[in-house]
């Protein structure tokens, strides 16, 4: 007993239901039939204590959840979110015991299981026609996108992340511009010499843009590797799955390349000041 309150997501399910396909759940789901039984997510924040070890060592142990004394009977694996530090699964009747103000009619999210081979879109449209307009009917992918959109567009977390990306691009733009600008400035006399012997502006534009692309690629490769390591570190620290997938990698590369390209275009203006007449001064 620590006496410290922590936030956990409570899922109330029918113990016979097979819709939750979480690692380790199927094997222990039958235990939810036990009186006041709780299954605990072993990927929850460590501040909840060594729950998995305690279950393995002592079997069932008692814990206070929502002001009710319940029994933690086993663990499963799910992973936390921004909204809760941990997850527990209880039988639906136990759920209403924890939250007496909730009623069986007040469902937040309902899952409909279709028979194998059923057409999802047809079923979706049929269900939608039967329900009020304020209820969303989504397939699995749409539900995932809806959640992402919520966190990205509506919550402060999404705003902060997006702002971070924009700030990163602006800072990167300024750094790359300064690098290119200084490089051009340091070689202004050489550029003027090349202009004097007959090189045209197109050539210099190619040189600067090439330099900016080299910076983009040269910066991206170590940046990607560092990010991959950081993702793992963050993942193990905050217990939230961090997915550095192909789309993210490509999007980041396109953004960085565009940023470097624009910096290069701006830095080219400095080349205009490379006057071939200067080499005869």
């Amino acid at each position, binding site marked *: 007993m620590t006496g410290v309150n922590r936030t956990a997501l409570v899922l109330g399910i029918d113990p016979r239901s097979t819709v939750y396909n979480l690692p380790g759940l199927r094997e222990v789901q039958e235990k939810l039939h036990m009186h006041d039984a709780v299954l605990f997510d072993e990927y929850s924040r460590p501040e909840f204590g060594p729950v998995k070890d305690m279950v393995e060592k002592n079997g069932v142990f008692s814990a206070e959840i929502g002001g009710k004394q319940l029994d933690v009977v086993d663990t499963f694996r799910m992973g936390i979110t921004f909204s809760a530090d941990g997850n527990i699964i209880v039988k639906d009747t136990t759920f209403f015991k924890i939250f007496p103000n909730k009623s069986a009619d007040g469902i937040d999210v309902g899952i409909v299981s279709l028979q194998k081979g059923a057409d999802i879109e047809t079923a979706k449209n049929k269900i939608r026609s039967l329900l009020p307009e304020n209820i969303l009917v989504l397939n699995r992918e749409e539900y995932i996108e809806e959640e992402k959109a919520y966190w990205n567009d509506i919550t402060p977390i999404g705003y902060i992340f997006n702002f971070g990306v924009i700030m990163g691009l602006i800072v990167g733009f300024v750094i790359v511009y300064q690098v290119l600008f200084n490089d051009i400035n340091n*070689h202004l*006399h*050489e550029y*003027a*010499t*090349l202009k*004097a*012997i*007959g*090189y*045209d502006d197109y050539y210099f534009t190619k040189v600067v843009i090439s330099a900016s692309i080299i910076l983009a690629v040269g910066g991206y490769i170590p940046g990607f590797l560092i990010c991959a390591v950081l993702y793992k570190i963050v993942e193990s620290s905050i217990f939230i799955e961090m997915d550095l997938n192909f789309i993210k990698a490509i999007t980041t590369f396109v953004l960085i390349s565009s940023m470097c390209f624009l910096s290069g275009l701006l830095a080219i203006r400095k080349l205009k000041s490379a006057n*071939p*007449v200067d*080499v*005869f*001064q």
Partner: protein
Amino acid sequence: MIMSDNHHLIHAHDLTYHYGSGELEQSVLKGVSLEVKSGEFVILAGPSGSGKSTLLSLIGALRGHQRGELRILDRDLNNASNETMRAVRQNIGYVFQQHNLLNFLTASENVQMTLEMFSDLSGAERNKMAADSLTQVGLGDRGASYPSQLSVGQKQRVAIARSLVHQPRLILADEPTASLDSKTGIQVVELLHGMVKNLGCGALVVTHDNRIFDYADRILHIEDGVVYS
């Protein structure tokens, strides 16, 4: 386009140039006339501020003149387009007071920079021409050296190799001995002189180093924007 006498690489007549305008106008060249033919090694001497560098920049098609007639390598530069000016520049070999080599390129690569403008040359051809040009200036074995590994005199010779590798019809040199010691300066001028005589091109060398006057076919003096033979 007005075609000049084939032997006249430079034909300037009554050339004027001034900086500023109105009350601030300052004349730098006042009716300059001069000619340089193929195979001629001409020295243009004069004190600082006499208009030498301005005249050289006009002849080198680096900027347009304001009044008078100027034909360089058979091209009329009166109101010439940027493209024409650039085309003229590609046929001129410039030797500057400073070598202006790119430090991150080897001597050979610096020389090849002149040839990169000519897309009809293969990499192997450019490499061989650069090696030949470096051999001509006595640096055949230093092609792989970076400028930081060369002496000042050697750098200036690499710059000359860069200027001459494409066998220009005209060489313009601005104080080529200014940054060199006496012995190296003489070597560089001998080199330029030999190139002019062997290749049949022309050279206009701006200098006030009277040690090299003996190499000149003609010496022109410029003072207060006026050229005297």
